[in-house]
């Protein structure tokens, strides 16, 4: 990280980062995001995250980006996991236990089949 000394610097850092992200997105097949606010963690998000990371290791899935985020507001549905395959719209799963996380990795990530019954209803 280099020091940002002007507005131009900031814009450049932003552009470079956007480029990096584009390149990374192009070389990765899927992006998984886990909600890790206190509400998510209290509902078991750490275990869910752990399960996802283990599945990636077990199956040797090198082309998947996993990241964390804060609370999106749907605390009732924690732990929340978002999955985006390529350019497809994000799918948001709710109450994702380690078992459900395993199923999502197996069906959605490996076979590109969305598990409808775990998806948070659109207008939740």
């Amino acid at each position, binding site marked *: *990280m280099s020091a*940002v000394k002007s507005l131009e610097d900031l814009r450049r850092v932003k552009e470079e980062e956007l480029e990096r992200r584009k390149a990374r997105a192009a070389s990765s097949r899927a992006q998984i995001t886990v909600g890790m606010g206190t509400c998510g963690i209290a509902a078991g998000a750490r275990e869910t995250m752990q399960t996802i990371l283990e599945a990636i290791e077990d199956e040797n899935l090198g082309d998947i980006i996993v990241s964390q985020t804060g*609370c999106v507001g749907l605390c009732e549905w924690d732990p929340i996991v978002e999955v985006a395959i390529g350019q497809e719209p994000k799918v948001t799963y709710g109450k994702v236990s380690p078992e459900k996380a395993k199923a999502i990795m197996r069906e959605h990530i490996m076979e590109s089949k969305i598990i409808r019954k775990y998806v948070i*209803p659109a207008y939740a």
Partner: protein
Amino acid sequence: MKPIRSLVLVSSDPESIGRGAQEVHRRLQRAIEAADLENEVVVSMVGDVGRHDALPMVIIYPEATIYGPVTPENVPFLVEEHLVERRIAAGLEASTRELSGRIAWLSARRGTLPAEQRIVLARAGLIDPENVEDYIVHDGYEALAKALTEMTPAEVINEIGKSGLKGRGGAGFPTGMKWRFVSQTDDYPKYIICNADESEPGTFKDRLILEGDPHSVIEAMAIAGYAVGANEGYIYIRGEYVLAQERLATAISQARQMGFLGETIFGSDFSFDIHIHAGAGAYICGEETALIESIEGKRGEPRSRPPYPTTHGLWGKPSVVNNVETIVNVPPIIQHGAAWYRRFGTSNSPGTKVYTILGNVNVTGLIEVPMGITLREVIAIYGKGMQDGASLKLAQTGGSSGSIVPASLQDTPLDFDSYARAGVSLGSGALLICNEDTCVVDLAKVSLNFFKRESCGKCTPCRVGTQRAYQILTAISEGVGTQQDLDDLQMLSENLTEFSHCGLGQTASVPIRDVFRHFRAEVDAHVQLKVCPAGACPMSGQLAKAA
């Protein structure tokens, strides 16, 4: 929980009943069953809807369309048009007095996730809070760059003033004015303090802002520092908020490395740095002067005001104290301008408000809504209706020191002015929704239990008053309360308001005052009939030992 598509409410105050509301309700149910919609549409009687010009009224959510007066004969047409064809049932709408702007905003949100149309929570739940690049990619630090390179401090303060931003920590004080007071003194050094002590029961909005978007607090504090001429900031954070502290510490060190904190920020001659100060679990330390005492290493007791922290704050120097949510509004205002900000909310309370919604609703959680939305809308749209179709009895806004808002006020817009006019307050950001099984004596007792434990003991009215009020409420809830107790409680409540040294004691009286004002008959039933109408109080006939 079943996925409800529509919520249909029928007014059922005495006048509506007299005009056939029950028959309207019955026919609605029948028509909805006939249309095979009973799994998607919930019909419910809601008592007094707060408007009496076109009764009986039928209000359909999430569109929040208001129909009235509706006769039983209108029902088939209404159901066919609105619920089957999804059009407005022409000719049946009530006049949209006072309602148009708010409702338009809400219907634009249909089918969207709550993350849209957010200001304060724009990035929470979207970015990785431990990744500064994520923040930058989502426009982070652009407002600070703009302020430092394109605006004078006076222009920054003017913009905040023009935006109409008011404090979200409870008191609703105009932020621009507070900053101007601090900028106008020649006494240096000055300090920016971010109040992250958040200890009201049921509030956790600041926590989730800090955990989800810590850099926004840093950026906002730096802008505030530039505006008033401060080079040092403190975040006073509740001790239990461990994850928030860790993420803040990470964010601060990233900001230092990248030059967003430190010397000559963005090539200007402005320097700024931030310290984290963790509280040790006392509610009183959220009060701004007790908070300052606590940072100074003293016992957390409130100071006399005036002088105010704007002139005599930390180490006796001019200080801005702002709530987390308040200050996080600053970068978007600087970035997009005051006029943009004023497009949200109402003219006297612009912007949004973040709430934690809890209690007897189907969905609890963290929400950001425009100022001026009504409680009914919040419950229907964000809470997805009352649990088990129960009716609303009251809501407690903003933790124990907020107001007890009876169901009859559920159509009062949630903004500073409308609430003040109705004699209630918004509080600091929790909405505890209670159904008919809630006993008001019990609620007041629980609130007073909190205040008696948290009273710092500095002044007698609060130290003794909260204790006595709790004892009396306990006696009433055990069925041994007397008429004298009620008179004493009334007096205690007035004395707490009048004579307490700080806001803690002054607001400790609020639950008592509100319960007397709105639910006097229910309190009297406990004392005169020895009955708890809600069936919640023990009413053992014995005085429990006061804790």
